[in-house]
């Protein structure tokens, strides 16, 4: 008897959660912008990855056909030294998306862990971590990045990733900390504590899942943020070295005024790639927020 009831409850739970999932998916699909965002993000990511897998030639300069307008051989035209822009935008997309996703995920993880610790333990631990985050917050991120670039004095991809992660965790941290502060007073946490559960278990297995949806949403929008940040850094000459194509690096050609006025394809395509991707990511993030956050109806 008890067995059957448990299974039935389990089945109920299962069906309830699957119906919730179905409902969420339906809700998401109803949000046309979010679907548009998802499609664009997936499509662009796949295209970039496909470009990387098929090893499109993004690096061979051809000075005889430099600054060529788009045609059937070069869909996006060629850049200032005759490299195929289509291939470069695809490859650059790989690096840009990598930078965005890697940094957003890792900085969210760091922010979430620190936020969980600070919010859950409170007191001195909290005070110390909050102070640290405030110190970081006091620096404009770009300035902090510039300072770190000056210290590391190298413009490699690894350095950039490191810098972005180190300087990007504060917003997630604040959010998770605040959620933890309010959630740790909830009864179910008290119950877990009364059961003598390990603190790490309570923090990460019991409370954290409740905070996951805002974390997911903010991670999504951070992807867009980091991609734009990389482009800005490239513009002031502190981004990834030129040998690694990123959307920011490619777009850098827009620094040259004559390129802007005379060779539109050199900057419009990478510019559109960045803007479209960022736009799509933001739509996707908004859609996820609508679905995951019941407050925002």
């Amino acid at each position: 008897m008890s067995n059957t009831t448990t299974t039935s409850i389990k089945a109920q739970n299962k069906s309830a959660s699957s119906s919730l999932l179905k409902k969420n998916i339906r809700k998401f699909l109803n949000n046309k912008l979010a679907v548009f965002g998802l499609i664009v993000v997936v499509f662009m990511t796949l295209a970039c990855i496909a470009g990387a897998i098929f090893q499109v030639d993004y690096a061979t300069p051809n000075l005889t056909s430099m600054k060529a307008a788009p045609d059937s051989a070069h869909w996006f035209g060629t850049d200032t030294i005759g490299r195929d822009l289509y291939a470069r935008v695809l490859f650059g997309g790989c690096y840009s998306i990598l930078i965005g996703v890697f940094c957003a995920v890792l900085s969210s993880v760091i922010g979430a862990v620190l936020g969980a610790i600070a919010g859950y333990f409170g007191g001195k631990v909290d005070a110390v971590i909050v102070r640290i985050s405030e110190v970081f917050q006091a620096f404009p991120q770009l300035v902090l990045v510039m300072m770190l670039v000056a210290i590391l004095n190298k413009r490699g991809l690894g350095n950039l990733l490191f810098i972005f992660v180190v300087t990007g965790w504060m917003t997630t941290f604040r959010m998770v900390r605040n959620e933890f502060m309010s959630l740790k007073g909830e009864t179910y946490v008290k119950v877990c504590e009364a059961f003598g559960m390990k603190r790490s278990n309570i923090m990460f297995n019991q409370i954290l899942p409740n905070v996951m949806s805002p974390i997911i949403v903010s991670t999504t929008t951070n992807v867009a943020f980091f991609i734009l940040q990389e482009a800005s850094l490239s513009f002031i000459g502190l981004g990834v070295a030129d040998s690694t194509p990123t959307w920011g690096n490619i777009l850098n050609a827009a620094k040259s005024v004559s390129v802007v006025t005379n060779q539109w394809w050199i900057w419009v395509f990478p510019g559109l790639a960045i803007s479209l991707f960022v736009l799509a990511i933001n739509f996707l993030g908004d859609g996820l927020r609508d679905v995951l956050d019941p407050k925002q109806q």
Partner: protein
Amino acid sequence: MLKFILKKLLMMIPMLLVISIIVFFGLQATGIDPINFMVSPEVLSANADNVEALRESLGLNDPLIVQYFRWLGNLLHGDFGYAFDGTSIASTLAVRMPYTFELAGYSLILSAVIGIGIGIISAIRQNGIIDYVGRVLAVLGQAVPQFLVGIILIQIFSIKLGWFPAANRVSPGATNQFLDAFQHLFLPVTTLTIGMVAVLMRYARNTMLDVLNSDYIKTARSKGIPEWKVYLKHGFRNAMKPVLVILMFRIPTLIGGSVVVESVFSYPGIGMTMTNAIVANDYNVVMVTTLIIAATMLICSFMVDVLNAIMDPRVRLGE
């Protein structure tokens, strides 16, 4: 209230100290020898003794900790030191800081007014035209890299239409100072504002929606007061607090953005100073500008705290 302000002010001191330590020791870690920049290589190899004397006189041979406290002491006395090329950092900053504050300040005000304004109208007329257009423009404004916006604006408004100058903050021989300032500030301020407005708009809209769903709005309506009073007196005032907080969080982004914008518009602010200093490895300048920017951030956040306290009795009366 006074106690609150004092407490907040006192908390800034250790923060500033920590920041100064990070900045100083961080940049010492670059291992750049300022002598290489101050003395020409010819002199460097010719008069090793003189160079050593110079090094000694600059205190570069002292332990780092001594150098740090000397630097800090000098800063407190208003002596900001010298750039590697020998110009006084204080005089450089005296000219450039006001320019950057002007740029960032106007953008802040403009984006706050526009962003919060449109955000709140969007919330009140949810799913109306302003809401829809505002939301899409917000996303678009966030999607285009700031420097590209600046370049496009220069192309259209300075070069094609010739309405605004493309560089500098002051034109030679400008007779009408106000007009001159307006012409020079218009494009960079617009560029910075476009990026800022987007975030504020979204945030103000969401906050206002939250507030409008709260019970006290219903209470206000139950009193039979006109709708604009409900929105402005009861809604807006409560929505302002989180919006102010987000505004504060955006100030670093604004300063960061002004680094980029200054470089696009040849605008002689501290952002440009800092970019140039980093490219030139002039860490004396980098140290001071970073510290000043950080201090400005702290002051801003302090002011937001105070403003918050003024606006919210729960904070003011110490809860």
